[in-house]
């Protein structure tokens, strides 16, 4: 019993290892439309121990109902030979007639050698109209905060398969039509790049998942801190090999954004105003503070002061203190929120690391208890 089984295995292995004469068909793509030229490679491989010479190579291309093309090549004895261990590629082409029926098409290759070997090989393809790709937006952020990552997910279906796609473009724009950090962001993909390789002048991450004739792309993007607030347009365009395209539009809103930090004019600055020592009736030293603001719109800068207290409970009233802006306005602290800069924008409606100068000054009353005084003052920045 075991002996028979061993012989069978041995026989199977011998068959597997036996030299062969094979024929393969390679089509340039899997979808063709009537009028288009189908091109195919016939690869004949000879792994027998002897040279083989072709007698004929017949190709027939059919749709589901009728013959579309016949291509025949006949070779005299010893003219078209393939040495042992070699392979040869024969290229053919045929225009698919306009009356070809939509559906499955077949390429059949019949090879015959002068030594009597025959091989038949078939390959299927699809005949149909190449429709433009179809974009479906799956998700996108309706509201975008600058300096935050978001995702746009959309699918593209092509009845000729995703290999028919040649380029895709995603544009996020406000009013301008040229790439700009403030108003216009462009992300592009082009064949033959990998589906996950998108190009942009800004950060972009891409994921792609492919299923049958559909690709789902997810792009991760981030708008700059100075991206214009307001209504933006999301525009997605995809082209196929036949230069057909589909375009979709969506609306989204970019919020206002501001950020700031404080910077002193001295080294080792802490978030405080230290007037140091002074005598009654004496002018306090002027202390400069720099407010570093980044915003996508103009800002109002306000200050809100309060009395300073000593550990013993003595008061240094807030109205002895003054705050000056670099544009000439001065306010005397009174405990309310006082605007120092109104609608401030260094550039055209926005600020980028803009240094806004604030100068604190004061004069001690003629009568004041000696001591250490402190309190909390507020710097308030509002996007307008």
């Amino acid at each position, binding site marked *: 019993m075991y002996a028979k089984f061993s012989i069978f295995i041995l026989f199977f292995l011998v068959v597997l290892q036996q030299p062969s004469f094979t024929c393969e068909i390679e089509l340039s793509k899997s979808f063709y439309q009537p009028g288009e030229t189908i091109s195919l490679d016939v690869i004949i491989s000879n792994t027998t121990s002897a040279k083989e010479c072709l007698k004929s190579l017949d190709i027939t291309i059919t749709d589901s109902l009728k013959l579309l093309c016949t291509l025949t090549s006949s070779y005299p004895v010893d003219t078209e030979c393939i040495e042992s261990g070699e392979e040869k590629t024969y290229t053919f082409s045929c225009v698919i007639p306009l009356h070809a029926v939509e559906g499955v098409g077949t390429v059949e290759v019949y090879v015959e050698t002068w030594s009597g070997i025959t091989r038949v090989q078939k390959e299927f393809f699809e005949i149909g109209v190449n429709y433009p790709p179809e974009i479906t937006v799956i998700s996108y952020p309706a*509201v975008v*905060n*600058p*300096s*935050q990552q978001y995702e746009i997910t959309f699918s593209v279906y092509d009845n000729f398969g995703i290999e028919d796609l040649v380029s895709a473009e995603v544009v996020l724009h406000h009013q301008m039509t040229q790439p700009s950090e403030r108003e216009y962001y462009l992300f592009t993909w082009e064949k033959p790049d990998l589906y996950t390789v998108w190009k942009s002048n800004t950060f972009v991450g891409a994921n792609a998942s492919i299923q049958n004739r559909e690709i789902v792309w997810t792009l991760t993007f981030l708008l700059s801190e100075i991206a214009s*607030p*307001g209504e933006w347009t999301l525009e997605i365009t995809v082209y196929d090999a036949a230069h057909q395209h589909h375009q979709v539009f969506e609306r989204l*809103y970019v*919020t*206002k*954004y*501001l*950020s*700031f*930090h*404080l*910077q002193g004019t001295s*080294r*080792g600055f*802490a*978030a*405080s*105003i*230290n*007037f*140091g*020592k*002074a005598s009654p009736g004496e002018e*306090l030293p002027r202390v400069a*503070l720099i407010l570093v603001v980044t915003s996508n719109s103009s800002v109002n800068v*306000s200050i*809100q*002061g*309060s*009395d*300073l*207290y*000593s*550990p*013993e*409970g003595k008061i*240094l009233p807030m109205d002895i*203190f003054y705050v000056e802006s670099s544009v000439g306005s001065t306010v005397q602290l009174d*405990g*309310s*929120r006082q605007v120092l800069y109104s609608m401030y924008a260094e550039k055209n409606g926005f600020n980028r690391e803009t240094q806004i100068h604030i100068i*604190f000054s*004061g004069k001690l009353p003629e009568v004041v208890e000696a001591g*250490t*005084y*402190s*309190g*909390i*003052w*507020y*710097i*308030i*920045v*509002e*996007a307008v």
Partner: protein
Amino acid sequence: MRLLTLPLFMILIIPLIAAQPGIGLATPLVETLTIDSFPFTYQNKFRVYNTGEEERVFVISISAPYQDVLDWVTVDASVFTLIPGDTKVVQFSIYADSGYQGEYDVLFKPTLLPTQTTPTPDSAMAHLAMSAAYKLTLIVPEGVGPPRPPEEEIPPEKPRELTKTVEEMEETKASTVRTFDKPLLINVPSRAYAYEPVHLSVEFMEGEEPTELGFILVAPSGKNYTLESDSVFSFNEKGTWNVLIVIKDEIIAGNPLEVEYDFGKDLKFRILPQYGIIVVGVITVVIGLYLWRRRK
């Protein structure tokens, strides 16, 4: 001398590389809302950014010209900690059952409070709080609500609406609070080990009523602990805690505190004190059995 150079250099350089605080705010484009009828409901959100270089506590304060208008407004988070680069979306809601005609500015102010308010000796010093503001104007047209009866308007900024109250923090309800501008001495470490007793204290420089001052500790899980102004506390959760300094029920400052776990500290401060008698008993029994067997 050369050996002293490095420590001296370090002493000089440390103040220069102190982490810088920064705040950011992304706000809705909506600046005005007209209330066409009551009851009125509206929701939107803003995002708070920690654009600084250190982990900080952020407090959302809300102000409005009248208490009844302020009562319309709530936020879903009023105190939170953000690490550098992190953000938090805060949702606010406006629910107005009824109201008087008028135009009301509601101001949302995410604020970075100073982490300490101690004065430098022999000086006049103002510590700076940083607020990013979003103003939303609510309009109740004539006919939608009755005219407002004469009553005292809350001065818009005085008393200052520093933060929400602790009680209302839990209810996520907006409120004004009383003035706070007195110097404090705050003793709160920035790091601690779980279960190790930590001394926390805060006091007025001018020796005001100490019972008014205290701490609210918010654990990473969200659990709250109320402590007196001079307390010893064992942190029982690993992670970032919010240490809020309060006067009565008003938050006036907040510091993050990182709690780490160390088995040695756990053994010393929790396991041995709690289970020590059992451990001693087991060891005694084991030694007793060992000696008994040796004698046999």
